[in-house]
Protein backbone atom coordinates (compact mmCIF):
# COMPACT_ATOMS: atom_id res chain seq x y z
CA UNK A 1 0.00 0.00 0.00
CA UNK A 2 2.85 2.27 0.83
CA UNK A 3 4.22 1.57 -2.60
CA UNK A 4 1.14 3.03 -4.12
CA UNK A 5 1.44 6.19 -2.05
CA UNK A 6 5.13 6.58 -2.76
CA UNK A 7 4.54 6.17 -6.43
CA UNK A 8 1.86 8.80 -6.45
CA UNK A 9 4.12 11.11 -4.51
CA UNK A 10 6.84 10.50 -7.03
CA UNK A 11 4.40 11.42 -9.74
CA UNK A 12 3.61 14.69 -8.05
CA UNK A 13 7.28 15.36 -7.48
CA UNK A 14 8.13 15.02 -11.12
CA UNK A 15 5.30 17.39 -11.90
CA UNK A 16 6.71 19.85 -9.42
CA UNK A 17 10.20 19.59 -10.86
CA UNK A 18 8.93 21.09 -14.06
CA UNK A 19 7.66 24.01 -12.11
CA UNK A 20 10.98 24.29 -10.31
CA UNK A 21 12.84 24.26 -13.64
CA UNK A 22 14.66 21.09 -12.88
CA UNK A 23 13.70 19.53 -16.18
CA UNK A 24 17.05 17.85 -16.69
CA UNK A 25 16.73 15.86 -13.52
CA UNK A 26 13.23 14.62 -14.05
CA UNK A 27 14.09 11.36 -15.74
CA UNK A 28 17.03 10.45 -13.48
CA UNK A 29 15.01 11.31 -10.43
CA UNK A 30 12.05 9.31 -11.62
CA UNK A 31 14.21 6.30 -12.38
CA UNK A 32 16.01 6.49 -9.07
CA UNK A 33 12.75 7.10 -7.31
CA UNK A 34 11.19 4.07 -8.89
CA UNK A 35 14.23 2.03 -7.96
CA UNK A 36 13.89 3.15 -4.36
CA UNK A 37 10.21 2.37 -4.39
CA UNK A 38 11.02 -0.99 -5.87
CA UNK A 39 13.18 -1.60 -2.80
CA UNK A 40 10.55 -0.34 -0.41
CA UNK A 41 7.98 -2.46 -2.14
CA UNK A 42 9.97 -5.51 -1.20
CA UNK A 43 9.51 -4.70 2.45
CA UNK A 44 5.94 -5.81 2.17
CA UNK A 45 7.06 -9.25 1.07
CA UNK A 46 5.45 -11.93 3.17
CA UNK A 47 3.56 -9.30 5.16
CA UNK A 48 0.02 -9.42 3.94
CA UNK A 49 -2.10 -6.55 5.12
CA UNK A 50 -5.25 -4.71 4.19
CA UNK A 51 -5.70 -1.00 3.86
CA UNK A 52 -8.40 1.61 3.56
CA UNK A 53 -11.02 -0.42 5.22
CA UNK A 54 -10.10 -3.46 3.17
CA UNK A 55 -10.30 -1.64 -0.09
CA UNK A 56 -6.75 -2.66 -0.92
CA UNK A 57 -5.03 -5.83 0.08
CA UNK A 58 -1.30 -6.23 0.03
CA UNK A 59 -0.21 -9.76 -0.57
CA UNK A 60 2.80 -11.42 -2.14
CA UNK A 61 0.85 -11.44 -5.35
CA UNK A 62 0.43 -7.71 -5.35
CA UNK A 63 3.99 -7.10 -4.19
CA UNK A 64 5.42 -9.25 -6.92
CA UNK A 65 3.32 -7.72 -9.63
CA UNK A 66 3.91 -4.22 -8.32
CA UNK A 67 7.59 -4.90 -8.42
CA UNK A 68 7.28 -6.01 -12.00
CA UNK A 69 5.26 -2.91 -12.81
CA UNK A 70 7.86 -0.68 -11.22
CA UNK A 71 10.60 -2.44 -13.11
CA UNK A 72 8.83 -2.01 -16.43
CA UNK A 73 8.17 1.65 -15.79
CA UNK A 74 11.77 2.12 -14.83
CA UNK A 75 12.91 0.61 -18.10
CA UNK A 76 10.42 2.65 -20.05
CA UNK A 77 11.58 5.80 -18.31
CA UNK A 78 15.20 5.02 -19.08
CA UNK A 79 14.22 4.87 -22.69
CA UNK A 80 11.91 7.88 -22.37
CA UNK A 81 14.87 10.13 -21.58
CA UNK A 82 16.29 9.28 -24.95
CA UNK A 83 13.00 8.96 -26.77
CA UNK A 84 11.82 12.46 -25.88
CA UNK A 85 15.08 14.31 -26.50
CA UNK A 86 13.35 16.49 -29.07
CA UNK A 87 10.32 17.10 -26.95
CA UNK A 88 11.86 18.34 -23.75
CA UNK A 89 9.12 20.80 -22.98
CA UNK A 90 6.72 18.04 -22.27
CA UNK A 91 9.00 15.56 -20.66
CA UNK A 92 7.54 16.13 -17.24
CA UNK A 93 4.05 15.46 -18.57
CA UNK A 94 5.04 12.17 -20.04
CA UNK A 95 7.03 11.05 -17.03
CA UNK A 96 4.30 12.06 -14.64
CA UNK A 97 1.61 10.35 -16.62
CA UNK A 98 3.69 7.22 -16.89
CA UNK A 99 4.21 7.14 -13.18
CA UNK A 100 0.53 7.66 -12.51
CA UNK A 101 -0.29 4.87 -14.88
CA UNK A 102 1.99 2.70 -12.81
CA UNK A 103 0.08 3.76 -9.73
CA UNK A 104 -3.15 2.80 -11.47
CA UNK A 105 -1.67 -0.51 -12.47
CA UNK A 106 -0.67 -1.16 -8.88
CA UNK A 107 -4.22 -0.51 -7.77
CA UNK A 108 -5.35 -3.08 -10.29
CA UNK A 109 -2.93 -5.53 -8.77
CA UNK A 110 -3.96 -5.10 -5.18
CA UNK A 111 -7.66 -4.23 -5.07
CA UNK A 112 -10.01 -6.02 -2.75
CA UNK A 113 -12.98 -4.01 -3.79
CA UNK A 114 -14.57 -3.41 -7.16
CA UNK A 115 -14.51 0.33 -6.55
CA UNK A 116 -10.77 0.18 -6.24
CA UNK A 117 -10.50 -1.90 -9.32
CA UNK A 118 -12.58 0.58 -11.26
CA UNK A 119 -10.46 3.46 -10.05
CA UNK A 120 -7.28 1.64 -10.96
CA UNK A 121 -8.51 0.83 -14.40
CA UNK A 122 -9.66 4.37 -15.01
CA UNK A 123 -6.47 5.92 -13.70
CA UNK A 124 -4.56 3.75 -16.06
CA UNK A 125 -6.89 4.11 -19.01
CA UNK A 126 -7.53 7.81 -18.99
CA UNK A 127 -3.86 8.50 -18.76
CA UNK A 128 -3.22 6.13 -21.61
CA UNK A 129 -5.82 7.80 -23.83
CA UNK A 130 -3.83 10.95 -23.46
CA UNK A 131 -0.49 9.26 -24.05
CA UNK A 132 -1.70 7.34 -27.08
CA UNK A 133 -2.73 10.58 -28.66
CA UNK A 134 0.25 12.50 -27.41
CA UNK A 135 1.78 13.15 -30.81
CA UNK A 136 -0.49 16.04 -31.33
CA UNK A 137 0.36 16.76 -34.92
CA UNK A 138 0.30 13.21 -36.09
CA UNK A 139 -3.15 12.19 -37.29
CA UNK A 140 -2.37 8.55 -36.72
CA UNK A 141 -1.54 9.22 -33.12
CA UNK A 142 -4.70 11.29 -32.78
CA UNK A 143 -6.74 8.57 -34.33
CA UNK A 144 -5.19 6.00 -32.05
CA UNK A 145 -5.85 8.04 -28.95
CA UNK A 146 -9.38 8.79 -29.96
CA UNK A 147 -10.28 5.26 -30.90
CA UNK A 148 -8.84 4.06 -27.67
CA UNK A 149 -10.78 6.65 -25.79
CA UNK A 150 -14.09 5.89 -27.46
CA UNK A 151 -13.89 2.19 -27.04
CA UNK A 152 -12.24 2.40 -23.66
CA UNK A 153 -14.94 4.59 -22.20
CA UNK A 154 -17.58 2.36 -23.73
CA UNK A 155 -15.92 -0.60 -22.06
CA UNK A 156 -15.76 1.31 -18.80
CA UNK A 157 -19.47 1.87 -19.01
CA UNK A 158 -20.02 -1.82 -19.55
CA UNK A 159 -17.78 -2.55 -16.59
CA UNK A 160 -19.74 -0.17 -14.44
CA UNK A 161 -23.04 -1.64 -15.45
CA UNK A 162 -21.70 -5.05 -14.60
CA UNK A 163 -20.46 -3.80 -11.26
CA UNK A 164 -23.84 -2.25 -10.59
CA UNK A 165 -25.64 -5.48 -11.37
CA UNK A 166 -23.32 -7.44 -9.11
CA UNK A 167 -23.85 -4.85 -6.45
CA UNK A 168 -27.56 -5.27 -6.91
CA UNK A 169 -27.29 -8.94 -6.04
CA UNK A 170 -24.60 -8.90 -3.39
CA UNK A 171 -25.20 -5.43 -1.99
CA UNK A 172 -21.47 -4.98 -1.68
CA UNK A 173 -18.45 -4.25 -3.85
CA UNK A 174 -16.22 -6.36 -1.75
CA UNK A 175 -14.54 -9.26 -3.44
CA UNK A 176 -14.72 -11.63 -0.49
CA UNK A 177 -18.43 -10.97 -0.14
CA UNK A 178 -18.99 -11.61 -3.83
CA UNK A 179 -17.08 -14.79 -3.45
CA UNK A 180 -19.11 -15.95 -0.51
CA UNK A 181 -22.28 -14.95 -2.36
CA UNK A 182 -21.28 -17.36 -5.10
CA UNK A 183 -20.50 -20.17 -2.74
CA UNK A 184 -23.70 -19.65 -0.72
CA UNK A 185 -26.08 -19.67 -3.67
CA UNK A 186 -26.31 -22.88 -5.57
CA UNK A 187 -28.21 -21.19 -8.37
CA UNK A 188 -27.05 -17.69 -9.04
CA UNK A 189 -29.59 -15.01 -9.95
CA UNK A 190 -29.49 -13.97 -13.62
CA UNK A 191 -28.76 -10.41 -12.62
CA UNK A 192 -25.61 -11.48 -10.87
CA UNK A 193 -24.51 -13.66 -13.74
CA UNK A 194 -25.12 -10.87 -16.21
CA UNK A 195 -23.13 -8.54 -14.02
CA UNK A 196 -20.23 -10.94 -13.71
CA UNK A 197 -20.18 -11.53 -17.42
CA UNK A 198 -20.30 -7.82 -18.18
CA UNK A 199 -17.39 -7.22 -15.81
CA UNK A 200 -15.61 -10.04 -17.54
CA UNK A 201 -16.20 -8.49 -20.93
CA UNK A 202 -14.81 -5.19 -19.82
CA UNK A 203 -11.73 -6.83 -18.38
CA UNK A 204 -11.24 -8.85 -21.54
CA UNK A 205 -11.41 -5.59 -23.41
CA UNK A 206 -8.63 -4.20 -21.30
CA UNK A 207 -6.39 -7.18 -21.94
CA UNK A 208 -7.29 -7.05 -25.63
CA UNK A 209 -8.81 -10.48 -25.91
CA UNK A 210 -10.81 -11.31 -29.01
CA UNK A 211 -13.49 -10.32 -29.90
CA UNK A 212 -12.76 -7.22 -27.80
CA UNK A 213 -9.32 -6.76 -29.21
CA UNK A 214 -10.13 -4.42 -32.04
CA UNK A 215 -8.69 -1.37 -30.42
CA UNK A 216 -5.32 -2.91 -29.77
CA UNK A 217 -3.75 -3.15 -33.25
CA UNK A 218 -4.92 0.30 -34.25
CA UNK A 219 -3.86 1.92 -31.04
CA UNK A 220 -0.53 0.13 -30.88
CA UNK A 221 0.21 1.19 -34.40
CA UNK A 222 -0.84 4.78 -33.99
CA UNK A 223 0.56 5.49 -30.57
CA UNK A 224 4.13 6.69 -30.13
CA UNK A 225 6.40 3.67 -30.17
CA UNK A 226 7.49 4.09 -26.58
CA UNK A 227 3.88 4.14 -25.46
CA UNK A 228 3.25 1.06 -27.53
CA UNK A 229 6.04 -0.62 -25.66
CA UNK A 230 4.48 0.48 -22.42
CA UNK A 231 1.03 -0.67 -23.40
CA UNK A 232 2.17 -3.99 -24.67
CA UNK A 233 3.95 -4.74 -21.44
CA UNK A 234 2.72 -3.05 -18.32
CA UNK A 235 -0.86 -2.38 -19.32
CA UNK A 236 -1.41 -5.91 -20.50
CA UNK A 237 0.15 -7.34 -17.36
CA UNK A 238 -1.86 -5.08 -15.12
CA UNK A 239 -5.01 -6.12 -16.94
CA UNK A 240 -4.23 -9.75 -16.43
CA UNK A 241 -3.28 -9.27 -12.82
CA UNK A 242 -6.62 -7.60 -12.27
CA UNK A 243 -8.52 -10.24 -14.17
CA UNK A 244 -6.74 -12.98 -12.29
CA UNK A 245 -7.38 -11.33 -8.96
CA UNK A 246 -10.98 -10.84 -9.86
CA UNK A 247 -11.45 -14.44 -10.91
CA UNK A 248 -9.54 -16.01 -8.05
CA UNK A 249 -10.63 -13.85 -5.16
CA UNK A 250 -13.89 -12.46 -6.40
CA UNK A 251 -15.36 -15.23 -8.52
CA UNK A 252 -14.25 -18.22 -6.50
CA UNK A 253 -11.69 -19.32 -9.10
CA UNK A 254 -14.24 -18.94 -11.80
CA UNK A 255 -17.91 -19.71 -12.05
CA UNK A 256 -19.06 -22.05 -14.81
CA UNK A 257 -20.23 -19.03 -16.73
CA UNK A 258 -16.96 -17.17 -16.63
CA UNK A 259 -15.08 -20.34 -17.43
CA UNK A 260 -17.21 -20.85 -20.46
CA UNK A 261 -16.73 -17.29 -21.52
CA UNK A 262 -12.98 -17.44 -20.99
CA UNK A 263 -12.75 -20.69 -22.86
CA UNK A 264 -14.42 -19.35 -25.96
CA UNK A 265 -12.57 -16.08 -25.74
CA UNK A 266 -9.22 -17.80 -25.27
CA UNK A 267 -9.70 -19.86 -28.41
CA UNK A 268 -10.75 -16.81 -30.38
CA UNK A 269 -7.89 -14.76 -29.03
CA UNK A 270 -5.26 -17.35 -29.85
CA UNK A 271 -6.49 -17.70 -33.37
CA UNK A 272 -7.04 -14.01 -33.96
CA UNK A 273 -3.70 -12.96 -32.64
CA UNK A 274 -1.63 -15.50 -34.46
CA UNK A 275 -3.47 -15.56 -37.74
CA UNK A 276 -3.74 -11.81 -38.11
CA UNK A 277 -0.11 -11.33 -37.23
CA UNK A 278 1.04 -13.48 -40.13
CA UNK A 279 0.60 -10.91 -42.83
CA UNK A 280 1.64 -7.78 -40.97
CA UNK A 281 4.38 -5.59 -42.26
CA UNK A 282 4.30 -2.98 -39.52
CA UNK A 283 6.39 -3.88 -36.55
CA UNK A 284 4.19 -2.22 -33.97
CA UNK A 285 1.08 -3.79 -35.40
CA UNK A 286 2.87 -7.10 -35.40
CA UNK A 287 3.65 -6.62 -31.75
CA UNK A 288 0.01 -5.78 -31.16
CA UNK A 289 -1.17 -9.03 -32.66
CA UNK A 290 1.60 -10.87 -30.93
CA UNK A 291 0.33 -9.25 -27.75
CA UNK A 292 -3.16 -10.51 -28.53
CA UNK A 293 -1.86 -14.01 -28.99
CA UNK A 294 0.01 -13.77 -25.72
CA UNK A 295 -3.20 -12.63 -24.15
CA UNK A 296 -4.65 -15.86 -25.44
CA UNK A 297 -1.98 -17.87 -23.69
CA UNK A 298 -2.39 -15.90 -20.52
CA UNK A 299 -6.12 -16.50 -20.63
CA UNK A 300 -5.27 -20.17 -20.37
CA UNK A 301 -3.60 -19.36 -17.10
CA UNK A 302 -6.66 -17.55 -15.85
CA UNK A 303 -8.77 -20.45 -17.01
CA UNK A 304 -6.74 -22.85 -14.94
CA UNK A 305 -7.10 -20.63 -11.87
CA UNK A 306 -8.04 -23.62 -9.78
CA UNK A 307 -4.54 -25.02 -10.02
CA UNK A 308 -2.89 -22.14 -8.14
CA UNK A 309 -1.30 -20.54 -11.09
CA UNK A 310 -0.37 -17.13 -9.75
CA UNK A 311 3.30 -17.98 -10.10
CA UNK A 312 2.68 -19.14 -13.65
CA UNK A 313 0.99 -15.86 -14.46
CA UNK A 314 3.77 -13.93 -12.85
CA UNK A 315 6.50 -15.85 -14.61
CA UNK A 316 4.80 -15.59 -17.94
CA UNK A 317 4.18 -11.88 -17.49
CA UNK A 318 7.75 -11.21 -16.52
CA UNK A 319 9.11 -13.26 -19.41
CA UNK A 320 6.77 -11.57 -21.80
CA UNK A 321 7.64 -8.14 -20.46
CA UNK A 322 11.40 -8.47 -20.73
CA UNK A 323 11.19 -9.93 -24.21
CA UNK A 324 8.88 -7.15 -25.30
CA UNK A 325 11.01 -4.45 -23.77
CA UNK A 326 14.14 -5.88 -25.33
CA UNK A 327 12.42 -5.92 -28.69
CA UNK A 328 11.33 -2.32 -28.37
CA UNK A 329 14.72 -1.22 -27.12
CA UNK A 330 16.04 -2.25 -30.53
CA UNK A 331 13.03 -1.15 -32.48
CA UNK A 332 12.91 2.39 -31.08
CA UNK A 333 16.32 3.54 -32.34
CA UNK A 334 15.70 1.76 -35.63
CA UNK A 335 12.41 3.59 -36.05
CA UNK A 336 14.06 6.83 -35.20
CA UNK A 337 16.97 6.41 -37.59
CA UNK A 338 15.04 5.05 -40.52
CA UNK A 339 11.87 7.05 -39.96
CA UNK A 340 9.85 3.99 -40.73
CA UNK A 341 8.02 1.59 -38.49
CA UNK A 342 7.65 -1.13 -41.05
CA UNK A 343 9.42 -4.44 -40.90
CA UNK A 344 11.48 -3.27 -43.84
CA UNK A 345 13.11 -0.80 -41.49
CA UNK A 346 14.97 -3.78 -40.05
CA UNK A 347 16.31 -4.90 -43.40
CA UNK A 348 19.94 -5.76 -43.17
CA UNK A 349 20.25 -4.84 -39.54
CA UNK A 350 22.32 -7.95 -39.11
CA UNK A 351 24.98 -6.34 -41.25
CA UNK A 352 24.56 -2.78 -40.12
CA UNK A 353 24.52 -3.43 -36.45
CA UNK A 354 25.04 -7.05 -35.48
CA UNK A 355 24.67 -6.40 -31.78
CA UNK A 356 21.24 -4.87 -32.10
CA UNK A 357 20.23 -7.58 -34.50
CA UNK A 358 21.37 -10.21 -32.07
CA UNK A 359 19.40 -8.53 -29.31
CA UNK A 360 16.23 -8.39 -31.34
CA UNK A 361 16.77 -11.95 -32.47
CA UNK A 362 16.99 -13.12 -28.91
CA UNK A 363 13.91 -11.13 -28.02
CA UNK A 364 11.98 -12.68 -30.88
CA UNK A 365 13.15 -16.17 -29.99
CA UNK A 366 12.09 -15.49 -26.45
CA UNK A 367 8.67 -14.29 -27.59
CA UNK A 368 8.28 -17.33 -29.78
CA UNK A 369 8.88 -19.50 -26.76
CA UNK A 370 12.05 -21.22 -27.85
CA UNK A 371 14.66 -22.15 -25.27
CA UNK A 372 16.82 -21.03 -23.59
CA UNK A 373 14.85 -17.84 -23.00
CA UNK A 374 12.27 -17.28 -20.34
CA UNK A 375 9.47 -17.31 -22.90
CA UNK A 376 9.99 -20.99 -23.37
CA UNK A 377 9.77 -21.94 -19.76
CA UNK A 378 6.78 -19.67 -19.40
CA UNK A 379 5.00 -21.55 -22.11
CA UNK A 380 5.97 -24.90 -20.73
CA UNK A 381 4.82 -23.88 -17.30
CA UNK A 382 1.58 -22.58 -18.72
CA UNK A 383 0.89 -25.70 -20.75
CA UNK A 384 1.64 -27.87 -17.76
CA UNK A 385 -0.73 -25.98 -15.53
CA UNK A 386 -3.46 -25.75 -18.12
CA UNK A 387 -3.11 -29.42 -18.82
CA UNK A 388 -3.32 -30.13 -15.15
CA UNK A 389 -6.64 -28.32 -15.07
CA UNK A 390 -7.89 -30.57 -17.82
CA UNK A 391 -7.74 -28.08 -20.64
CA UNK A 392 -6.56 -30.69 -23.05
CA UNK A 393 -7.81 -29.47 -26.39
CA UNK A 394 -7.20 -25.83 -25.87
CA UNK A 395 -3.61 -26.59 -24.90
CA UNK A 396 -3.24 -28.50 -28.10
CA UNK A 397 -4.62 -25.50 -29.93
CA UNK A 398 -2.20 -23.27 -28.11
CA UNK A 399 0.66 -25.53 -29.09
CA UNK A 400 -0.38 -25.37 -32.71
CA UNK A 401 -0.70 -21.63 -32.44
CA UNK A 402 2.77 -21.24 -31.09
CA UNK A 403 4.00 -22.89 -34.27
CA UNK A 404 2.23 -20.24 -36.27
CA UNK A 405 3.73 -17.68 -33.96
CA UNK A 406 7.23 -18.74 -34.80
CA UNK A 407 6.68 -17.76 -38.37
CA UNK A 408 5.94 -14.11 -37.79
CA UNK A 409 8.58 -13.67 -35.16
CA UNK A 410 11.06 -15.11 -37.58
CA UNK A 411 9.87 -12.73 -40.27
CA UNK A 412 11.62 -10.04 -38.29
CA UNK A 413 14.75 -12.13 -38.01
CA UNK A 414 14.67 -12.92 -41.68
CA UNK A 415 14.37 -9.26 -42.51
CA UNK A 416 17.40 -8.49 -40.40
CA UNK A 417 19.64 -11.16 -41.83
CA UNK A 418 18.18 -12.00 -45.17
CA UNK A 419 17.47 -8.64 -46.75
CA UNK A 420 19.95 -6.17 -48.11
CA UNK A 421 20.55 -3.14 -45.90
CA UNK A 422 19.83 0.38 -47.05
CA UNK A 423 22.07 3.36 -46.57
CA UNK A 424 20.75 4.71 -43.31
CA UNK A 425 22.98 4.39 -40.31
CA UNK A 426 21.43 3.29 -37.08
CA UNK A 427 22.25 5.38 -34.07
CA UNK A 428 21.97 3.38 -30.95
CA UNK A 429 22.18 5.51 -27.84
CA UNK A 430 23.56 4.06 -24.67
CA UNK A 431 20.30 3.94 -22.77
CA UNK A 432 18.66 1.72 -25.38
CA UNK A 433 21.68 -0.54 -25.40
CA UNK A 434 21.56 -0.74 -21.65
CA UNK A 435 17.89 -1.68 -21.71
CA UNK A 436 18.52 -4.25 -24.40
CA UNK A 437 21.30 -5.91 -22.47
CA UNK A 438 19.47 -5.86 -19.18
CA UNK A 439 16.29 -7.27 -20.61
CA UNK A 440 18.00 -9.90 -22.71
CA UNK A 441 20.13 -10.93 -19.78
CA UNK A 442 17.08 -11.18 -17.55
CA UNK A 443 15.25 -13.19 -20.19
CA UNK A 444 18.17 -15.55 -20.40
CA UNK A 445 18.72 -15.80 -16.66
CA UNK A 446 15.07 -16.38 -15.93
CA UNK A 447 15.03 -18.92 -18.69
CA UNK A 448 17.96 -20.81 -17.28
CA UNK A 449 17.05 -20.43 -13.64
CA UNK A 450 13.28 -20.22 -13.62
CA UNK A 451 13.12 -20.80 -9.87
CA UNK A 452 14.11 -17.18 -9.38
CA UNK A 453 10.55 -16.30 -10.26
CA UNK A 454 8.50 -19.42 -10.06
CA UNK A 455 9.22 -20.04 -6.42
CA UNK A 456 8.07 -16.59 -5.40
CA UNK A 457 4.35 -17.08 -5.43
CA UNK A 458 3.96 -20.69 -4.50
Amino acid at each position, binding site marked *: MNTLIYTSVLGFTTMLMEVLNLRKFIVPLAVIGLAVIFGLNLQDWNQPSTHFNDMLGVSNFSVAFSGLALFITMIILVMAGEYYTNDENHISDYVTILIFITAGAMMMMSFNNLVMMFLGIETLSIALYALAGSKRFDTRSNEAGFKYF*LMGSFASAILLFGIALVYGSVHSFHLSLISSFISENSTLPPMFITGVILIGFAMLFKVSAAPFHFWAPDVYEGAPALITAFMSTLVKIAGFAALYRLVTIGFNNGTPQTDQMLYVVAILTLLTGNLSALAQDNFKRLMAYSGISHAGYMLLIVLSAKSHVSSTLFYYSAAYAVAGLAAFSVALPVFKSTGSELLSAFNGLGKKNPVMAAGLTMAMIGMAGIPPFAGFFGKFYLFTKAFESGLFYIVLLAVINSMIGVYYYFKVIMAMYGKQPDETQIENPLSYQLVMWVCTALSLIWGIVPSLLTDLLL
Partner: protein
Amino acid sequence: MTNLLQTPEATQNWYLLLSTVLFSIGVIGVLFRRNALIILMCVELMLNAVNLLLVSISAYSGNVDGQVFVFFIMVVAAAEVAVGLALMVSIYRSIGSIDINVLNKLKW
Protein backbone atom coordinates in the same frame (compact mmCIF):
# COMPACT_ATOMS: atom_id res chain seq x y z
CA MET B 1 -51.60 -4.51 -8.52
CA THR B 2 -50.67 -1.43 -6.59
CA ASN B 3 -49.39 -3.62 -3.82
CA LEU B 4 -47.12 -5.33 -6.11
CA LEU B 5 -45.75 -2.09 -7.35
CA GLN B 6 -45.12 -0.89 -3.84
CA THR B 7 -43.09 -3.81 -2.58
CA PRO B 8 -39.45 -2.83 -2.40
CA GLU B 9 -38.37 -5.59 -4.78
CA ALA B 10 -40.88 -4.61 -7.39
CA THR B 11 -39.94 -0.98 -7.24
CA GLN B 12 -36.34 -1.91 -7.46
CA ASN B 13 -37.12 -3.94 -10.56
CA TRP B 14 -38.65 -0.87 -12.14
CA TYR B 15 -35.50 1.03 -11.45
CA LEU B 16 -33.50 -1.80 -12.87
CA LEU B 17 -35.63 -1.80 -15.94
CA LEU B 18 -35.35 1.94 -16.34
CA SER B 19 -31.62 2.01 -16.02
CA THR B 20 -31.28 -0.96 -18.34
CA VAL B 21 -33.36 0.84 -20.91
CA LEU B 22 -31.31 3.98 -20.48
CA PHE B 23 -28.13 1.97 -20.74
CA SER B 24 -29.36 0.26 -23.86
CA ILE B 25 -30.29 3.58 -25.41
CA GLY B 26 -26.74 4.65 -24.70
CA VAL B 27 -25.33 1.52 -26.28
CA ILE B 28 -27.53 1.89 -29.31
CA GLY B 29 -26.48 5.49 -29.58
CA VAL B 30 -22.84 4.51 -29.51
CA LEU B 31 -23.55 1.91 -32.12
CA PHE B 32 -25.44 3.99 -34.58
CA ARG B 33 -24.25 7.52 -34.30
CA ARG B 34 -21.28 8.65 -36.26
CA ASN B 35 -20.59 11.93 -34.59
CA ALA B 36 -17.98 11.50 -31.92
CA LEU B 37 -19.55 14.10 -29.69
CA ILE B 38 -22.87 12.34 -29.69
CA ILE B 39 -21.17 9.05 -29.02
CA LEU B 40 -19.48 10.65 -26.07
CA MET B 41 -22.83 11.80 -24.80
CA CYS B 42 -24.25 8.35 -25.24
CA VAL B 43 -21.44 6.98 -23.16
CA GLU B 44 -22.31 9.53 -20.53
CA LEU B 45 -25.89 8.34 -20.74
CA MET B 46 -24.71 4.81 -20.09
CA LEU B 47 -22.74 5.99 -17.11
CA ASN B 48 -25.73 7.82 -15.75
CA ALA B 49 -27.87 4.77 -16.17
CA VAL B 50 -25.36 2.97 -14.02
CA ASN B 51 -25.42 5.77 -11.53
CA LEU B 52 -29.17 5.56 -11.32
CA LEU B 53 -29.06 1.87 -10.80
CA LEU B 54 -26.38 2.12 -8.12
CA VAL B 55 -28.27 4.76 -6.23
CA SER B 56 -31.52 2.86 -6.36
CA ILE B 57 -29.93 -0.34 -5.18
CA SER B 58 -28.11 1.54 -2.50
CA ALA B 59 -31.32 3.09 -1.32
CA TYR B 60 -33.27 -0.12 -1.28
CA SER B 61 -30.61 -2.21 0.33
CA GLY B 62 -29.62 0.42 2.88
CA ASN B 63 -26.01 0.10 1.88
CA VAL B 64 -24.31 3.42 1.15
CA ASP B 65 -21.41 1.98 -0.79
CA GLY B 66 -23.34 2.37 -3.98
CA GLN B 67 -23.94 6.03 -3.48
CA VAL B 68 -20.31 6.61 -2.69
CA PHE B 69 -19.38 4.81 -5.83
CA VAL B 70 -21.62 7.10 -7.83
CA PHE B 71 -19.46 9.99 -6.79
CA PHE B 72 -16.39 8.21 -7.94
CA ILE B 73 -18.05 7.52 -11.23
CA MET B 74 -18.98 11.11 -11.70
CA VAL B 75 -15.46 12.24 -11.00
CA VAL B 76 -13.95 9.70 -13.30
CA ALA B 77 -16.46 10.49 -16.00
CA ALA B 78 -15.54 14.11 -15.78
CA ALA B 79 -11.88 13.29 -16.17
CA GLU B 80 -12.68 11.00 -19.03
CA VAL B 81 -14.70 13.63 -20.79
CA ALA B 82 -11.92 16.14 -20.31
CA VAL B 83 -9.39 13.90 -21.99
CA GLY B 84 -11.89 12.85 -24.61
CA LEU B 85 -12.83 16.36 -25.55
CA ALA B 86 -9.20 17.33 -25.75
CA LEU B 87 -8.54 14.50 -28.12
CA MET B 88 -11.57 15.48 -30.12
CA VAL B 89 -10.32 19.02 -30.46
CA SER B 90 -7.00 17.72 -31.58
CA ILE B 91 -8.63 15.49 -34.17
CA TYR B 92 -10.86 18.26 -35.39
CA ARG B 93 -7.85 20.46 -35.81
CA SER B 94 -5.98 18.02 -37.93
CA ILE B 95 -8.71 16.56 -40.11
CA GLY B 96 -11.55 18.98 -39.71
CA SER B 97 -14.14 16.43 -38.78
CA ILE B 98 -15.15 14.36 -35.85
CA ASP B 99 -17.05 11.78 -37.82
CA ILE B 100 -15.74 8.46 -36.63
CA ASN B 101 -16.06 6.95 -40.08
CA VAL B 102 -13.28 9.22 -41.22
CA LEU B 103 -10.99 7.71 -38.62
CA ASN B 104 -9.89 4.65 -40.47
CA LYS B 105 -6.27 5.29 -41.33
CA LEU B 106 -5.29 2.53 -38.97
CA LYS B 107 -6.58 -0.80 -40.07
CA TRP B 108 -5.80 -4.43 -40.92
